[in-house]
């Protein structure tokens, strides 16, 4: 057999795992991938609008930060996406695929709106706000806890479990909005407490969303410290790397799974609180707006680092707002932004390969022989 093989047969190239790449190099690869993605996006945009790409990028910037109002909207959206991304991160680091953030956010929002509607008039603000916070955290945490318990008990597939929990949450919202619809039968509850503003987040210094942004900034710092410097953060990353190792060094894996999902759900609950009490003052099936899914990509692209997440969520929201502006200007469908988001994410996750692996061609192998 062996004699039949051509003498110096080596494959054209082979792939090997890299050691840690220097930071600037991996950064260059990432930036390169984003640039490549933007070029592809430009081609797509030109194909549909026939405009020159520079004016299109100008439109994107204008749509994202063109006016003071838009800039605030941008920051608000970044903060909300960041909040959900932070929430899913500890679970991901543990390799627990919580794709139920959407549902956990909605449940937090549902608890908030329930308190606002039925206790908004009777409770003093000093009591009302804490009750809202506790209710939303509890609701989100419970929604995260249920799949975690089954995962810990029987290793039930959490990806699909959390996914299904989303739809149960969505239907609960539907039920709630039909029952409490204003006017009756419309299926919507509209903006609540608009005269008393009971339970609404106050606007700081005239800026409506400032409080949301401050809260999310605080959460970002908290999550950074929690993951990097706390014992909990260490334990969950060990569980994520290898459950057997975790067990061997005496970490109670089940406890870590449940505790981490409680935290993840609770933070999603806070996101729901911010969306309902701090932003919409209402609730619909669309309140979470797909952020639960986008957050997974934000967190993954940022390599679970809360500080990078600010950048990745900014990138995605910026693009989304810009694409919406393009679609309004050229009378296209606003889903345009999702196409662009998809393209960019494809490129960034594709680029990870070049960071983690290197391709070695045949001639480089010869050099080593010399």
């Amino acid at each position, binding site marked *: 057999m062996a004699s039949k093989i051509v003498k110096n047969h080596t494959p054209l190239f082979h792939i090997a795992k890299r050691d840690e790449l220097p930071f600037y190099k991996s950064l260059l690869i990432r930036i390169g991938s984003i640039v490549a993605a933007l070029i592809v996006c430009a081609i797509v945009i030109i194909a549909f609008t026939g405009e020159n790409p520079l004016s299109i990028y100008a439109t994107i910037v204008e749509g994202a930060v063109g006016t003071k109002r838009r800039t605030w909207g941008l920051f608000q959206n970044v903060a909300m996406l960041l909040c959900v991304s932070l929430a899913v991160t500890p679970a991901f680091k543990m390799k627990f695929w919580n794709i139920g953030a959407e549902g956990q956010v909605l449940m937090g929002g549902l608890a908030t709106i329930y308190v606002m509607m039925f206790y908004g008039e009777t409770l003093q603000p000093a009591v009302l706000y804490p009750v809202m916070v506790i209710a939303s955290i509890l609701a989100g945490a419970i929604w995260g806890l249920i799949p975690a318990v089954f995962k810990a008990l029987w290793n039930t597939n959490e990806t699909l479990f959390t*996914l299904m929990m989303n739809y149960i949450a969505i239907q609960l919202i539907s039920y709630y909005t039909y029952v409490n619809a204003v006017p009756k039968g419309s299926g919507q509850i509209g903006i609540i407490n608009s005269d008393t503003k009971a339970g609404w987040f106050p606007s700081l210094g005239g800026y409506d969303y400032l409080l949301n942004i401050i809260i999310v900034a605080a959460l970002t710092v908290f999550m950074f410290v929690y993951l990097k410097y706390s014992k909990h953060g260490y334990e969950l990353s060990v569980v994520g790397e290898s459950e057997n190792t975790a067990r061997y060094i005496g970490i109670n894996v089940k406890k870590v799974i449940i505790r981490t999902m409680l935290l993840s759900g609770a933070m999603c609950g806070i996101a729901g609180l911010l969306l309902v009490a701090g932003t919409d003052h209402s609730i619909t099936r669309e309140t979470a707006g797909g952020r639960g899914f986008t957050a997974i990509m934000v967190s993954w692209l940022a390599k679970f680092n809360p500080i990078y997440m600010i950048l990745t969520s900014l990138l995605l929201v910026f693009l989304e707002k810009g694409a919406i502006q393009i679609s309004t200007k050229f009378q296209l469908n606003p*889903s345009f932004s999702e196409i662009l988001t998809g393209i960019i994410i494809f490129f960034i996750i594709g680029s990870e390969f070049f960071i983690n692996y290197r391709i070695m061609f045949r001639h480089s192998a010869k050099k080593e022989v010399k």
Partner: protein
Amino acid sequence: MIASFIQRAVMQGIPLLFGSTGEIITEKSGNLNLGIPGVMYVGGISGVIGAFMYEQSFEDKADMNPFLAVLIPLLCCVFGSLVMGLIYSFLTTTLRANQNVTGLALTTFGTGFGNFFGGSLIKITNSDIPSITLSSTSAYFSKTLPFADNLGWVGQVFFSYSFLAYFAIILALFVSFVLKRTRVGLNLRAVGENPATADAAGIKVILNKYAATCIGSVIAGLGGLYYVMDYADGVWSNDGFGDRGWLAIALVIFALWKPKFSILGSILFGGLFIVHNYIPNIDVSTQEIFKMLPYAVTILVLVIVSARKKKEHQPPQSLGVTYFREER
């Protein structure tokens, strides 16, 4: 009433059946493709684009060639979903990207793609029609068996569907057979259970993963096409397809990774999906509670399957894990 309920349930179930058959093939190769909802959107809209172009090229819709009217959307749909499958395979198998993230990105992209073209097709082609209504094409797609009307309820329950619906059922049986009884199926299952062992045994792991994912995507895409052309009578409405893609993924678990079970499962899910329309004297709000049923049932099955730990009911062992030959 019962006959019409079953008929509607089957029609609801067929897209799910296509989706879950496709996803089962994909998952058997160890790829958990969460992009199936996106793939089904792309399959649907690609067919719509093809049919739209073909219909627009005729002044009088009666001149359309029935054979081409079916073939063109079908080929467009296959092409669109094949591209989606290739994107997923390239990213996860060749570039070893994370499957969940890739899948979700694919879903974002696919639903965006569907809604974008659904909402902008008229504007892009400068047509002067108010909405995308492909009733002529749909008429060819939803042709039922000619003798169905004469058979009363038997005809309604068993023979009142279009060719794609029967194709879905035959396909599911065929896939079941291939997976269980043939060498190809055995190899594919080996790749999904333990790619390293399969590789050592000389099975082409990468080829199997690519083929399974792409074939799976194409089958799932047909579900999107069936939905638009038959169920929705050729009318594309944005987000009309809804969460059916996720339900198809749920159905995979419900059917315990066996396509022949998903035939009954899909009809059951279809029934659960519409049962709220058939229960007398319930108000709108209670209907919303009934709409939870398919999801709640899936969770229940998921929990029971995982608690019983029966070997033949488990997901493929390497599901969701990227294979890298040089590892270790």
